[in-house]
C-alpha cells in the first residue's frame, strides 16, 4: 500500500519520466532486439571510423603507448614521393578498369540476350570465375602470364614478340586489369542481362516497322532502357576500384618499381611493412575526405541535371 502511494507521488513529481518508463515497457522487445546490433555497429564500425581520425594525429606505439604528434603523420604522407605515385597509379588503375572492363559486360549482355539457344550455358560459363576462390586465380594467372606460359606461347604462334606481362612496368597494371575483368565481369553481366531482357519486345517490333536498323534499335531502345543501371554500375565500379589493392598485392606486391602500388595498397604497406600505423590512418582519413568531396560534387551535379 505504502509503496503504491510512493509510486503515485513519484509519478506526479515527474510525469515525463514515467511516460518514458511506460514507453520503454511498451517497446521493451523493440529496443532489446536492436541492442546487439547497436553494440556491434558501434564497436566494430563506428569505433574504427572515429578512432582512425584520432590515430592519424598520433604516433602509434603498441608497447610504450601513443603520443600526440599533431599533423606530423599528414606531413609524412604528403611529402612521400611514393604517395604521389600511388595516387597516380590508382587513377590509372581506375581508368584502365573503365576502359578495358566496363563495357565488356554490357556488350556481352546484349549479345547473350540475342542467343536463341544455350543462353543458360553462356550465363553459367561467364559466372564460373566468380565461383573460383581468388587465391586460386592468383596462382593460375601467374602461370598464364609466365614467360613460358600459354599467353606467350600464343604470341609466339602468331609471330609476335614475347611480353613479360608481369615484370614489364608498362604491362603490369594492364595485366592485372585484364585478370580482374575476366574474373569479375560475369556478375555484372547477369545483372545487365536481367535488365536487357525486361525491355518490352514490342518496342523493337515498333521500331523495326518504322525502319530502324539493328544498331539504331540498340542505341535508341536498349541502351536508354538500361541507362540508370549503367550509371549505378559505373558509380559502384569507381568506388570499388578506388579501393583496389588485393590483386596488386597478391600478383606483384606493388612492383615492379612501384608501378602497381595503388593508394590502398600503400595504406597497408605503411601499416604492416613500415609499421607506421599513424601515417596509415592519416592516409585513410585523406582518402575518406577526397571520396567524400567527390560524392558531394557528384550528388550536386546529378541534382542539377534533374
Amino acid at each position, binding site marked *: 500500500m505504502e509503496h503504491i502511494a510512493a509510486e503515485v507521488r513519484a509519478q506526479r513529481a515527474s510525469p515525463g519520466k514515467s511516460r518514458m518508463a511506460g514507453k520503454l515497457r511498451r517497446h521493451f522487445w523493440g529496443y532489446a532486439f536492436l541492442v546487439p546490433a547497436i553494440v556491434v555497429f558501434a564497436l566494430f564500425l563506428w569505433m574504427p571510423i572515429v578512432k582512425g581520425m584520432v590515430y592519424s594525429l598520433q604516433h602509434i606505439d603498441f608497447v610504450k603507448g601513443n603520443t600526440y604528434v599533431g599533423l606530423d603523420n599528414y606531413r609524412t604522407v604528403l611529402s612521400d614521393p611514393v604517395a604521389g605515385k600511388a595516387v597516380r597509379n590508382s587513377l590509372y588503375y581506375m581508368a584502365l578498369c573503365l576502359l578495358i572492363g566496363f563495357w565488356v559486360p554490357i556488350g556481352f549482355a546484349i549479345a547473350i540476350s540475342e542467343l536463341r539457344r544455350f543462353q543458360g550455358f553462356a550465363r553459367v560459363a561467364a559466372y564460373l570465375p566468380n565461383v573460383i576462390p581468388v587465391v586460386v586465380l592468383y596462382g593460375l594467372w601467374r602461370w598464364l602470364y609466365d614467360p613460358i606460359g600459354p599467353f606467350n606461347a600464343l604470341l609466339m604462334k602468331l609471330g609476335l614478340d614475347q611480353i613479360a606481362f608481369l615484370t614489364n612496368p608498362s604491362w603490369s597494371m594492364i595485366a592485372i586489369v585484364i585478370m580482374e575483368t575476366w574474373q569479375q565481369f560475369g556478375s555484372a553481366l547477369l545483372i545487365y542481362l536481367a535488365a536487357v531482357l525486361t525491355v518490352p519486345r514490342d518496342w523493337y*517490333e515498333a521500331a523495326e516497322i518504322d525502319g530502324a536498323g539493328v544498331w539504331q534499335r540498340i542505341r535508341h531502345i536498349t541502351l536508354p532502357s538500361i541507362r540508370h543501371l549503367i550509371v549505378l554500375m559505373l558509380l559502384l565500379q569507381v568506388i570499388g576500384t578506388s579501393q583496389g589493392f588485393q590483386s596488386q598485392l597478391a600478383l606483384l606486391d606493388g612492383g615492379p618499381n612501384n608501378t602497381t602500388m595503388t593508394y590502398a595498397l600503400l595504406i597497408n604497406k605503411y601499416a604492416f611493412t613500415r609499421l607506421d600505423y599513424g601515417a596509415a590512418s592519416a592516409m585513410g582519413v585523406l582518402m575518406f575526405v577526397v571520396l567524400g568531396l567527390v560524392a558531394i560534387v557528384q550528388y550536386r551535379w546529378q541534382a542539377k541535371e534533374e
Partner: protein
Amino acid sequence: MTSHERGILSHSDLRRPRMRLAYGAMLAAIALMIASMLYPFTVTIFNGLKLNTDLNAFPPHWLPRSWHFENYATAWRYIALPGFLGNTLKIFVGNMVATVLVTGLAAYSLSRLRVPRRQWIYLFFMITLFIPPTTYIIPNFMNLKSLGLLNTFWAFWLPAGASAFYLLVLKNFFDSISMELFESARIDGASEPRCFFQLALPLSVPIFATLAIFVFATAWNDWYWPSLVMHSNRTYPLATAVYKYVIEVRRLDNNIKFALLSMVTLPPVVVFLLFQKYIVRGLHLGGVKG
C-alpha cells in the same frame, strides 16, 4: 510470329546476308568468351595431373601427356587442408549465426516493432554503408587488437553482425511479409521473441539462404583480412593458408601447386552448379551492392 519470340533482332533481320554475318561474328565472340572462361578452369585441373617437366614444357599443352593422380596424394600430404577447411567453416557458421541473431533481430525490430526514434537508429546503421572500408582498414585492425580479439574467431563472428547491407536486405524482406500474420499471433498471446523465431524466421528462409551464399562466398574467398587478424596455423582459414603456403611458396613444384588449387576449386564449383538457380537469384540482390 508472336511478339515475345523476337529479341532486338527479328526473323526477317536474320534473313539478310549482312545481318547473318554480324550475327555469326557475335556468336563467335560469345563462343570465344565461353572458351576463355572454361580454358583456365580446365587447365588448372589438367596441370594438376601432369608431370612437373611436362607442365614446364614450352609451348604448354592443354591435356597431360600422362595422367598422374598421385599428385593429389602428394598435395594432400603437403598441407593439412581439412584443418584449414574446418576454420573456414567455423567462420562461416559463426558469421551466419551473427547475421541471423544480430542483424536479423535488428531488421525485424526496425521493420515491425515501430519503436520511437527508429529513424535515427536506422540512420546510425545505414551511414556506415557510405564509408568505404579501405579508409578505416588500419584502425579496424588496431581496434580488434585493443579489444584482444586478434587470433580468435570472435574477430570474425562479432563484426559479422555489423553489416548495413544485410540489414537493409533483411528489413526490406520483413517489410514485405503481411502484417496481419503478426497481429493475429500477438492477439493469440505470442511474445515478440516468439513472433520472430516461430513466424518471421521460418518465413524468411529464402532470404537467409541467399545471404548464406554471400556469407559463404566471403568466408571462402577472403584471404587478406584473415592473414592480418589470424596469425597461427591453427586459425588460418583455407584461402589464407593456400595463399601463404601454396601461392607464395617458390620451392613447391608447379604440378603439386595446381593439384592443390584444383582441390580448393572443385567444391565451390560443384556447389555452384548444383545450386545455380538460387545463387543467380541472390545476385540480383547483390546488384545493389555491386
